């Protein structure tokens, strides 16, 4: 599946207009979106997956013009096609690691996919903490839990927002390798938005928003 954007722009509440370069990404490819803090990288990522409404332009995911879908359909389409990973993990604190991962099958994915959870937890070294609540695990384990959920979600594209900016070199390497490996596992396109220059060597395709 291809992801193609053309002439995207968004408008902030203070009327500032932000225009973004066009992007084309195929399944299995990966791209690094660079730029200094405050240049609109996260806004671009949010616009790309329909979280921020567009001022102009269009987003095609396969044959679907994603940007024009109504809200409910857009939410469901996003959940099927975009797996989102943030710098800080977004998980439900009342659930265990296992249940948070399982949540990916709750609303969109077929329930049978849940049978793959043990395998995914094993792959991401989360077996030992699978029954722990989110407040009881480390930030690295939280990050891996989010990635596990995305793997179960099997989206067409993985979008990662500053996944390594607060990590040391070793952890940065671990996380980016895990993301690349995970994207390969499910044959998803990988889009990483960052100002972290350490990620440059891992990507052949790059786009600079500065």
């Amino acid at each position: 599946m291809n992801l193609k954007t053309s002439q995207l722009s968004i408008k902030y509440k203070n009327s500032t207009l932000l225009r973004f370069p066009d992007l084309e990404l195929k399944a299995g490819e990966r791209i690094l979106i660079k730029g200094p803090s405050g240049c609109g990288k996260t806004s671009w990522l949010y616009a790309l997956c329909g979280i921020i409404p567009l001022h102009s332009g269009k987003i095609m995911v396969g044959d679907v013009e994603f940007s024009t879908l109504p809200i409910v359909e857009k939410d469901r389409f996003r959940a099927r096609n975009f797996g989102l990973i943030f710098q800080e993990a977004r998980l439900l604190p009342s659930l265990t690691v296992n249940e948070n991962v399982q949540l990916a099958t709750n609303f969109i994915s077929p329930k049978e996919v849940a049978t793959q959870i043990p395998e995914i937890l094993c792959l991401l070294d989360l077996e030992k903490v699978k029954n722990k609540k989110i407040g009881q695990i480390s930030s690295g384990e939280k990050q891996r839990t989010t990635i596990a959920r995305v793997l179960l979600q099997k989206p067409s594209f993985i979008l990662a927002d500053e996944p390594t900016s607060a990590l040391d070199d070793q952890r940065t390497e671990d996380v980016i390798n895990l993301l690349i490996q995970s994207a390969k596992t499910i044959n998803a396109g990988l889009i990483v938005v960052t100002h972290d220059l350490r990620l440059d060597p891992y990507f052949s395709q790059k786009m600079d928003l500065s």
Partner: protein
Amino acid sequence: MSVIKIAIKNLLHQPLAPILSILLIGLSVAMIVFSVRLNQQVEKRFNDNLADIDLILSAKGSPLQSVLCNLFHIDAPTGNIAIEDAIPHLREDHPFIETAIPLSLGDNYQGNRIVGTTLAFYDHYELELAQGRMIETNNEVIIGSTVAKERNLQLGDHFVSGHGIRDEGFEHDHGGELEVVGIFSPAGMITDHLIFTNPSTVWAQHEHDEESFLSTPVVLSTRDLSKYPDHEITSVLITFTGKSMQILNFGRNINEHTKIMAADPAIEINRLYQLMGAGFDITRLLAYAILIISLISIFLSQLMNLKNRIRDMAVIRMLGGKRSDVLKIIVFESLLIGITGILLGYLFTFLGITKTNQWMQESYQVSIPFLTVSSAEWGMVVLILIVCLVAALLPAFRLYKVNLYESLNQDL
């Protein structure tokens, strides 16, 4: 994983506030249910035991005490009256009085009152023998069904009565033993808890020597009673032939012109019921106040949790869930608190009934039913669930207006 399961997990994740709300709801439900059931039971008991008695003649004192003692058997007599004073009202040809039932009280057996009376009582209360026969001479008794069961008494059993209306351990020395000659069928009234004998047995029991005991006459009917004007009885229960101005003034005339007192059971019970009703109303008011506090606590905890909800909503929507899924979680949480609180309240009620029923039965011949759910209780249950729903709706509505971008930008 269903939204109900997520709601339960959320409640268990930070259980302090929900537990507090559940306890408060439980407490108020228990107070309301207990008060409603006790109120209904007391009202039913009062109405059942009024037994269409229009007037009670007894020694001067408190009319309410007279009614409680002679109709409900839960208070002490106001004293005795001389048969001489009661004779005008015991006449069979009295123009206003249809039935006159003499009562002689003052003795008990293990706390069950012994009532000296005549056949007129059994006829009026429509008591039927389940076993045995009617009383034929002194020192014979017929017992109520509950007495037979609780005191394990059977036909032919003998026992010694105690002096006083409560079991205080003072047995009569010269009255001889009483013999059970009959057992009444259950009537669902206070009569099930009483021991019946003829009026002269009560006199015989109070004689102080063997000779006097043996010379006590045998009185079985109201007509015979009039032959002993120098003896005493406790009261006369009266029903009128109808309603007229003379009958309406009958009680007042007795109170103003004779040595005895006339008490109107309907008026006295209405007065008592108003007093008790105020108590029940205050209890219920207090219970509803606690309920309102508990519902405010649900509302506030939901509101304070709104930030976490917004964050949860972001996660759920990113995974394809709808805003309505998050709203369902909030509503389920609130309803779960309400339902658990109601169940806990009924548990408290059952425990309370178990603990108090025996005492209430012995003291007031009232027992609160376990399983009868009245329309007032159903109304309370529905009201609690509706208010729980309302307590969840405002936070839910505020949440509904937050878009995904804002929810993602919540500080973690």
